[in-house]
């Protein structure tokens, strides 16, 4: 992958054209658009590096814990706890924890923090989804000779897709918001505009960050809704139709 350029600080010195940007949004955008595109792409990159990992971890965990009420309780409690850690603190923690591994700064802490954040919605929805598969359906599957694994993979998971996907959507939207802090640990992204904007009381910068993050979240939610619809088995969408 080619290195993603980060906006360098010298562009923002008082003698830079930035003086004009504060006054005139046109000039601001004209000057900053390459960095805005950069930020947007980096933001997306962080989120879409994290979520597939999170799905790969969370769905199997959800499947594994769902038959065991105690284990389920423990795992859901831990993941809820992880989610209550203030996101800013979690990013800070990542820097400290990953620092000795040489991963303290850059994409790694951001990606790992977002994976941790998105565990709960996906695990919880996987557990919920599996629990709402009718017991009669599972009994029938076992009764006609599906093995345990076949029952989960061929019957329970397909029936769980809509609910699991809702969890994934939740995680992505959450992740897009949390990824704003990524700029503080050197991962870039749209958070840069927000935090730098605050630092210099630059209205347009803050707006750039805020509006783009919101738009990204809304857009991602929409795309995932469509994906959810595509992945949902046809039989689940088939209502009672007149014959």
């Amino acid at each position: 992958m080619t290195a993603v350029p980060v906006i360098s600080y010298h562009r923002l010195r008082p003698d830079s054209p930035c003086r004009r940007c504060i006054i005139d949004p046109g000039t601001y955008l004209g000057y900053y658009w390459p960095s805005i595109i950069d930020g947007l792409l980096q933001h997306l990159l962080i989120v879409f590096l994290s979520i597939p990992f999170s799905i790969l971890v969370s769905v199997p965990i959800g499947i594994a814990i769902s038959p065991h009420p105690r284990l389920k309780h423990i795992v859901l409690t831990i993941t809820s706890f992880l989610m209550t850690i203030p996101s800013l603190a979690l990013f800070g923690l990542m820097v400290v924890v990953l620092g000795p591994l040489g991963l303290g700064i850059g994409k790694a802490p951001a990606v790992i923090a977002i994976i941790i954040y998105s565990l709960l919605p996906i695990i919880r929805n996987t557990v919920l989804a599996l629990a709402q598969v009718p017991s009669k359906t599972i009994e029938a599957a076992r009764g006609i000779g599906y093995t345990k694994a076949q029952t989960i993979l061929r019957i329970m998971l397909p029936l769980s897709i809509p609910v699991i996907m809702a969890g994934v959507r939740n995680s992505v939207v959450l992740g897009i918001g949390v990824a704003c802090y990524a700029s503080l640990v050197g991962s870039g992204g749209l958070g840069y505009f927000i935090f730098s904007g605050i630092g210099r009381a630059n209205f347009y910068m803050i707006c750039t960050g805020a509006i783009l993050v919101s738009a990204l979240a809304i857009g991602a939610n929409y795309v995932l809704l469509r994906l959810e619809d595509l992945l949902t088995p046809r039989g689940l969408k088939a209502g009672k139709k007149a014959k």
Partner: protein
Amino acid sequence: MIEFNSVTKRFGSRTAVNGLSFVIDEGTTTMLIGPSGCGKTTTLRMINRLIDADGGSISINGKMVSSFNPVRLRRSIGYAIQETGLFPHLDVFSNIAAVPRLLGWKEDRIQERVAELLDLVTLDQSYARMYPLQLSGGEAQRVGLARALAANPDILLMDEPFGAIDPINRAKLHELFISIQNKIRKTIVFVTHDINEAIKLGTKIAVLEAGSLVQYDNTAHLLESPANEFVERLLGHDRKLKALILKRAGSYADGSGCGRVASGASPSEIARAVAASDEGCAMLIGPGSVLRGVYTLPSEGGAPLLNSSPLTIQESGDLQEALSLMVAAGESRIIVVSGQDVFRGILHLSDISNEISSPIPKNLGPAAGSGVPA
């Protein structure tokens, strides 16, 4: 042949099944009946090892079920349950094809088999591409039955399959069930809590109470001589009426007492035929012995009148149905027909009341008729 030998199953401190011993004969429909919690479903599920027995043994054709791999055992036994348990994300075809696919059948053989089964359960081939949510309860249950029969198992286990279906459709499914069983002659074990269903469908009935077998007998014998008060209460005070379900209208049809006229007969011929008959009626018989109507003398006198839609029942219909038809219409006789209205004879209300009042052997005590049959 399925043999239970002092089978016991406990769930925690509760004994679900207690020392159960009985033999289910090949090719028969055996109904397991009893109140909720009597262990009938547990008994059923121990056959395909969805539940493993704690004590005793179950064998199929002399081979212990415990010696089978449970998954392979279940694939070799049909299984149908209440609310069907159809897989909502798979279409009807794939639902029926589930077991053959697990068994690794070739796809063209599966297609052939699914088409055959849709025919058997009287569903149009176009249903193959529909999804379970698009089906009515009765249709879904037919698919459930087809799925259970897909790999042509010798044994079929059914757990209240028609329990969640409205009475009209349930009656239709009962007819279908009987006609299918007459064709395929599987060994069917059928759990129900509906005594009427048990009487209608069962070759034999096993009555369970609190995990023990109270009585195991042929349906007719069970109705005649309940082993104890519990069975008697289960059968209801109208068990003699229920026993009418077992008797076919065809065996009581008598055509000797009524006159017959062909279509196109003159009024005087008709009047003569009616007057000459013991029953005071004459059947209007069209080509192919098809019944077109009945001439009877009006009560106020005069020429015989034609009733072109008389009260009829199929000869395969049971006496209970005949009785309720007669009561509903306020008539004391009903015409028995076969196939497309081919005249067989007349069934009288008195034939039915003779059946009901014929002496039934008195209660023979709790031991009679229960336990392992000869």
